[in-house]
């Protein structure tokens, strides 16, 4: 037995190598190198040519700081709003039956499917001062939406809406109804059942969705650039500032800002992964119970 075991294992490890032609592996690496590693490395190399002091100065110039405040701040507000409404919509889709459910479900994919320029045009059309919603808002409350930071926030809400719904849906579907019934039998009220039993289980999914939506909203360009007036210190977002720096041939500043955005993307990817690991652990504990 002890003699045959290693040979079996060797055989097992040889099978995939035999069945797997090596060219998919090669295509993958060549493609990734040309399309991802080379551009990434190029930008980091360019960023490394800027001295650390200069890098810090450019990354924290008043102009850049103002765009961070708008990009990172408004995205946070937008993704938190979607955290609340996304949970509500996911609940409606999974736990309720109502006419037009299928349509609502399909509509939620529209922000993913619609080109961002079209989304920007659509939102500007609705929220400009002649728009369906922009006109009453301006006439009744004096609120301008398009071409202000409020408009930027609405564009961010639009593009980050599906994330929370789509991450919460599967978890909500897999929740066992028995838990709620047990909680009910033990005398918990409806709100106690929700906040003590259901919500903690949904939390990792909600956070993951919010983080994904946040990351997407921070990087968003197409829809925001159309609904914003792109005035520095008012509603200019960081990606637009990068484009403006490139148009001014200020490659160094664009590189620095691009590197900051890249670092943000990497950190948020890490956080999203950590949240998902945490969520899986939760699920595992559930299954074991």
């Amino acid at each position, binding site marked *: 037995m002890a003699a045959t075991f290693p040979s079996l294992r060797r055989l097992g490890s040889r099978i995939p190598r035999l069945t*797997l032609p090596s060219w998919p592996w090669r295509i993958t690496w060549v493609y990734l190198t040309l399309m991802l590693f080379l551009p990434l490395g190029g930008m980091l190399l360019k960023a490394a040519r800027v001295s650390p002091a200069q890098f810090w100065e450019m990354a924290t110039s008043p102009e850049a700081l103002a765009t961070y405040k708008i990009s990172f701040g408004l995205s946070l507000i937008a993704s938190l709003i979607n955290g609340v409404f996304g949970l509500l919509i996911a609940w*409606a889709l999974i736990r309720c039956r109502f006419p037009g459910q299928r349509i609502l479900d399909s509509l939620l994919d529209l922000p993913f*499917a619609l080109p961002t320029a079209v989304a920007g045009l659509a939102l500007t059309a609705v929220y400009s001062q002649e728009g369906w919603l922009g006109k009453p808002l301006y006439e009744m409350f004096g609120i301008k939406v398009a071409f202000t930071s409020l408009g930027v926030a609405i564009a961010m809400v639009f593009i980050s*809406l599906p994330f929370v719904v789509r991450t919460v849906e599967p978890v909500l579907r897999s929740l066992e109804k028995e838990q709620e019934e047990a909680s009910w039998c033990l005398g918990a009220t*409806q709100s106690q059942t929700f906040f003590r039993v259901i919500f903690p289980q949904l939390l990792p999914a909600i956070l993951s969705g919010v983080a994904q939506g946040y990351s997407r909203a921070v990087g968003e360009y197409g829809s925001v650039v159309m609904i914003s007036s792109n005035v520095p210190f008012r509603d200019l977002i960081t990606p637009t500032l990068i484009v403006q720096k490139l148009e001014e041939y200020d490659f160094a500043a664009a590189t620095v800002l691009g590197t900051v955005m*890249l670092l943000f*993307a990497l950190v948020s990817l890490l956080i999203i992964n950590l949240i998902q690991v945490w969520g899986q652990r939760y699920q595992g504990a559930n299954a074991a119970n």
Partner: protein
Amino acid sequence: MTSVTPTLESFTPPAPVKPSFSKRVKGLVPSIIVLVSALYVGIVILLPAIAVVVQAFAKGIAPFIESVKSEDLQAALRLTLLDAVIVVPANCIFGLAAATAIARRQFRGKALLLSIIDLPFSISPVVVGLMIVLLYSPTNGLFAGLVNALGVKILFATPAIVLATIIVTFPFMAREVIPLLEEEGWDQEEAAKTLGANSWQVFWKVTLPSVRWAALYGAILTTARALGEFGAVSVVSGNIRGQTQTLPLFVEDAYKQYDTELAFGAAVILMGVAIVSLFLKILLEQLLEHDKATRTSSITAEE
């Protein structure tokens, strides 16, 4: 069966499962949740979508057709289609190659590699465009010498547009196919191998058919995004009307130039593409589920 055991006919089905707590409390809460959800989606998503269609056809169908026939819009449409025709097959080959190479292999750093493939989804499209500029700009790029020596125009021309679109869209295919391949396992491929098929035959006759709907879905997502990509392309294209402008860039440019009719005309075309892709998505999801159902039933039948 029934004739042998006639008691079965008189057997009443078990009482339906007790409705759950949330359903039993038939208060106002569920209807409020549905109402608020519908209202929110209606305002945030549906209303803007309808506004585009209404604006495009505000003056009737004839002016819409007129603006679609405009030369600049046609040029933009041609460039967008050319872009997609190059990008989609290239990314499909990569996606399938990456999926067959990665999916059913266990190796150190597999999770990292999967995250790397997903990276373009988390990087801002503008930064993707910037990276291409920093590589291929004839004045400031890392490859400036090479670009000038070869005499090819990459930046502010079709090659850069294609490159930008490839980077932004390459994760879709791999992302759709990898989970399915991992679920499937190796049995069929191994059987085909033992029966004497070569690697190409195994891929073409066994692997690809088993993931066909997921692959098609990945291809549709890639196409939709390739046709609609804005940020990355806008940084590298130079945005010259009639020459280096894709349809999404044309939408923004026309709107900025107060050619609202042209802008909305082009936007409706792009929205049509998006809606068609959503319909195909629903269709393919049903086909996928059907495939899965038949597979599990055949497995249980074997057992």
